[in-house]
């Protein structure tokens, strides 16, 4: 499965979950954000031209007063924009193409003040899948890294409850919807990604290839760093 197929599959999954969960959740939310990760490690210079990686965040949240009035449980899918850019290094001797997808479980906590403002703190942990394609003078090499990731962030959301502007009797569904903008600032930790088994896709070599070929090891990539997000959210009260 390539990264494009993975993106589509995850998005369909999240929307299906949102629809299917209506009957059992008290409030269900969907967030779409842009996340900028400031990873300053020198290892990233091989795959990125600056210290900022742009990531699309798609998060589904669930909250219920039975647990806590201020708590929201979250599942996030993140995908980096870097997958669209190929970087050239060492005067063209080397080209890199890097993709990352992260799957995170988390929670945020924070009270809603004055009916529209919610300061919050968010934590989460999950799994990161990274793919690196390396092209030199021969057939491209690929390797995948599987890593643990965790984050903590603080921020706030501004919410517009449509129930304040609609008549529930006339528009019962619309009055249960809230729209919002949110921003978070935090730190994301990730174990170093090992790219020590870069190899040619087996299909691109002849079946009767007589040569034993060693993997290429270009080292580890450290993706930890501060991040900032900004995005939209929509929530439905059940």
């Amino acid at each position, binding site marked *: 499965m390539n990264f494009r197929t993975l993106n589509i599959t995850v998005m369909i999954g999240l929307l299906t979950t949102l629809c299917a969960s209506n009957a059992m959740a008290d409030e269900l939310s969907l967030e779409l954000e842009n996340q900028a990760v*400031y990873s*300053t*490690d*020198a*290892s990233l*210079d*091989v795959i990125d*031209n*600056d*210290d900022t990686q742009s990531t699309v965040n798609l998060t589904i949240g669930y909250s219920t007063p039975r647990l*806590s*009035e*201020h*708590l929201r449980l979250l599942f996030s899918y993140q995908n980096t924009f870097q997958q669209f850019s190929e970087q050239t*290094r*060492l*005067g*063209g*001797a*080397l080209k890199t193409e890097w993709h990352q997808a992260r799957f995170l479980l988390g929670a945020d*906590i*924070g*009270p*809603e*003040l*004055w*009916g529209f403002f919610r*300061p*919050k*703190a968010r*934590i989460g942990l999950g799994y990161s899948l990274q793919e690196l394609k*390396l092209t*030199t*003078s*021969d057939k491209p*090499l690929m390797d995948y890294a599987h890593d643990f990731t965790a984050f*903590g*962030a*603080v921020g706030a959301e501004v919410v517009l409850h449509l129930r304040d502007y609609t008549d529930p009797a006339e528009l019962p569904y619309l009055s249960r919807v809230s729209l919002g903008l949110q921003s978070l*600032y*935090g*730190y994301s930790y990730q174990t170093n990604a090992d*790219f020590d088994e*870069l190899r040619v896709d087996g299909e691109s070599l002849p079946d009767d290839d*007589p*040569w*034993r*070929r*060693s993997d*290429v*090891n*270009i*080292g*580890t*990539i450290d993706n930890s*760093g*501060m991040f900032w997000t900004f995005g939209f959210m929509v929530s439905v009260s059940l």
Partner: protein
Amino acid sequence: MKTIKSMKDMKALQWIVIALCAVASLGCDVEFDERLKDALDVRGPYRVNGDMVYINATLQQFIRIDAVRSGEDYDLEIERLKTGKRPSVIKQSTDGQKLFVLDEEERTLRIYDVSGDETSVTVVELQSAYDVITLDPEGEYVLLSFGDSLNQNVIARNLNEVAIVSLTDAQPDPVYVTLASRARQLIFAKPFDFGGQPQRLVAALSDNEVSILDLNADDEDNLLRIVPLTISEAEQPPKPIQAIFDTKIDPERGEYINLYLLMERASDITQVTVQPTVRADAVLKFDLSVNQLAAGSSPGSMAMVDLGDELGTRLITIDRALPRFTMMDVYSGESATFALPMNTPARDLKVYNATRTVDGQVVSETRVLAYGTSTLMAVIRPATIAIAGNEPTLGRSVEAIRIEAVPERVEMESTGAQERAVIFHPGLKGGFTVLNLRNNRDIPIQGHSLDDIYFDGPYAYGIFRGTPHFGVFDLSTGHPSVFELPKNGASIGVDTKDGLIVVQHPDRTGTFTVFNADEPTPQNARVWRDVFLTNLTNREVAQ
């Protein structure tokens, strides 16, 4: 309106905010590593005891690659050390055990000692960013000077300056000498004794003068001596183009050594005699005297041959314009010119020792190989030529060898019996020639030309040009065995200790194939790609 109802929630929020602010304060911007934008510049290979050494000037790394056996399989052990910020000139010592790297930006000379399993490095701080390294064949000194290159980054530098680095010191402290004019070439004399005192001299050839550096001098007057090449100021100073020291001292003839100088467009050789001063009150250590030896009409290159006690030392020069050579007896000053059995002038001379059997005994004989741009080469046997006598008989004192194609370069066998040479031919399919220097028999190998050759005892290993194959040649018969490569090769080495053949392919990022030397087939090989990119993400290496 909702309010904060739970103090627990509030407390948790408070702690998370404090923690994140603390972490955020640690974050700082890091500059992009601009080296990654530069073109990949890897110099080498320098072959050392079966290992291959490279200088990655872009990533500022010294890389030593050692192919080893790992059970039935093979592995590459890669050692990486730091170089300076801008490695400029690299030279390997004659014995191959040291690599000298000048750094233009840091003004240092790094000496990598590769004689052991682990490389050690000595950093010598320098006054200037020199760009020429001259190595003492005896391994005692390194001289650093300036060449012709124009360096736009330089604000000011003394082009006549020479740095003398003594390698016998654990932490060398260079001595600086300023010559009267820029040294174009620095020629070391072999060590010799005057009155039991060891001496080391260097000839510095400049555009219009020759200086002699006394590396053992105690004072400035003796450190640098200018050779008087002209007798009056009205005379145009000659330009030296080649120098050879003769440090063999014959006690019967006196205690002196000679320096032979070939000047541009001259018709003679300048003989500079260096001897200990005879005056007791002299300030200077040596007396210098100059003599001229007739060297034919237009000598282009010279070689010195030592023919033993009976015949002494002779000089041979080749003519630039005609296929002929001149031989000089340096003791008597007599010289004679002889024709070479070639149809174009010779361009290069190679002196070697060949063995031959006389009355059942193997005797060594000094010979000279002369070659140029034609398919005819000549082997001169100087010991059989009487300078004052008649012209030598063709086929006995001078023998012609007709080869299949024009020589591109000639490499003498550097190991084993040292009685063979390989003649490289230009073009893709010019083939090559194995020349038996003992019996002057040439073995033409038809096929692809050679790009690289490595001698190892009775065998030579060669990389063919333009085809993914390498060859193992039995030098006694010339029989080639051809083996397959995964792609075209560029250079080849043999790790005798592990019994492995290491082939480097031409990719800039470093691709290698390691073979079992006993049976170099694909089944007994392993291929490594992009070796110079190993740990590229973690590219900072130890000192």
